[in-house]
């Protein structure tokens, strides 16, 4: 009987230690798989390169672009206003720190592979309904926005507005990516976790 009491006390003490340790709770998918699949396959969750260019030009504060590429690639070239969260880091940490602000729409993009889509499924599966994806990745964005050319004599007002947006976004892109290294670092540091900072205030 004595050994049982000792073991009980040992187990209780060990679990008391556990209760006092700062173990972060890992969270699990709670969304119904069928619903999740039909959600992420629908077009409503993706933005085109042009829509993203418009957010960039308007400096829309309700939108957060998230660059999932490795940080070296992000440093070399990135869309103005984007924050860098490398994919490997994104899926290994609690996304609450990045996606916690539900008033902001988070738009993922990567090189154009599957990573942005994986991130979308992951984030939505954890209940972050404010997650979206940009179609085609950064390659598509650059070719659409920077490589834009209008030919022909006359263009419609709609085409003109589109062209203006692309031109302005292209200028901002060139400006950011041609900054000297020190200034660029300063700029990127200032943007880090800006999404989280907005979360404050009196709630």
């Amino acid at each position: 009987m004595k050994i049982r009491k000792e073991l009980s006390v040992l187990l209780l003490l060990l679990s008391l230690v556990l209760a006092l340790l700062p173990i972060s709770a890992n969270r699990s998918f709670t969304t119904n798989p069928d619903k999740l699949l039909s959600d992420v396959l629908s077009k409503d969750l993706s933005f085109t390169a042009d829509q993203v260019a418009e957010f960039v030009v308007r400096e829309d504060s309700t939108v957060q672009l998230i660059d999932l590429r490795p940080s070296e690639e992000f440093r070399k070239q990135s869309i103005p206003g984007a924050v860098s969260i490398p994919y490997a880091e994104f899926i290994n940490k609690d996304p609450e720190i990045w996606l916690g602000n539900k008033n902001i729409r988070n738009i993922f993009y990567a090189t154009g592979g599957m990573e942005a889509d994986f991130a979308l499924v992951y984030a939505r599966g954890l209940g972050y309904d404010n997650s979206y994806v940009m179609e085609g990745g950064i390659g598509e964005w650059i070719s659409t926005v920077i490589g834009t050319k209008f030919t022909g004599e006359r263009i419609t007002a709609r085409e003109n507005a589109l062209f203006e947006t692309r031109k302005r976004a292209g200028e901002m892109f060139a400006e950011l990516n041609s900054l000297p290294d020190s200034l660029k670092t300063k700029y990127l540091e200032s943007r880090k976790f800006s999404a989280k900072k907005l979360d404050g205030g009196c709630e």
Partner: protein
Amino acid sequence: MAPLTSYFAFPEWLNMLTALLIGTGFGFALEQGGFSSSRKLAGMFYGYDATVLKVFFTAAIVALIGSQFLGYLGLLNLNQVYVNEFYVTASIVGGVIMGAGFIMGGFCPGTGLCAMSIGKIDAMVFVAGGFTGAFIFTETYPLVEGLANARYRGPVKINETLGLSPGLFTLLMVAAAVAMFWIAELAEKKFARPEITNDL
């Protein structure tokens, strides 16, 4: 059998061998603990023998504490540990069917196989019954599909649902287990029956 590490792939035969060794150890421990006697499991229901509760709950809380510590030390990635999916209706219906089977048969699937391997005839019938049930379920799945998938909750964890940290939940669980063991031993005294396992 799950891979032991994701850094490099173990050959299939090594995974199988590991599974075989763990399974053999589990079966041996069950047999030595007296679980190949159907009285052990039935005793749980009638209150004269709470060995099943004590053994399995001790295993569960030891694993709970151990995995939390391994996770904290960075030796085990708890994010990659499979979490069972929760189908509310199926859990209730299945639990009732399985529980009734436990009492009537006097085995759970593990102890059934264990008792079968030492040549118990009732265990052979029990295992055959289990396979028949699995066969019927599979063949009639379209009929029970609605019931089987009703009220799906996903792979939820109790501590998440309650909003507790894993550590605190572990503490509560261990405290509850110790309390249960104490009550179970009181019940064992109250409903005691003569030991006849050796006479059978």
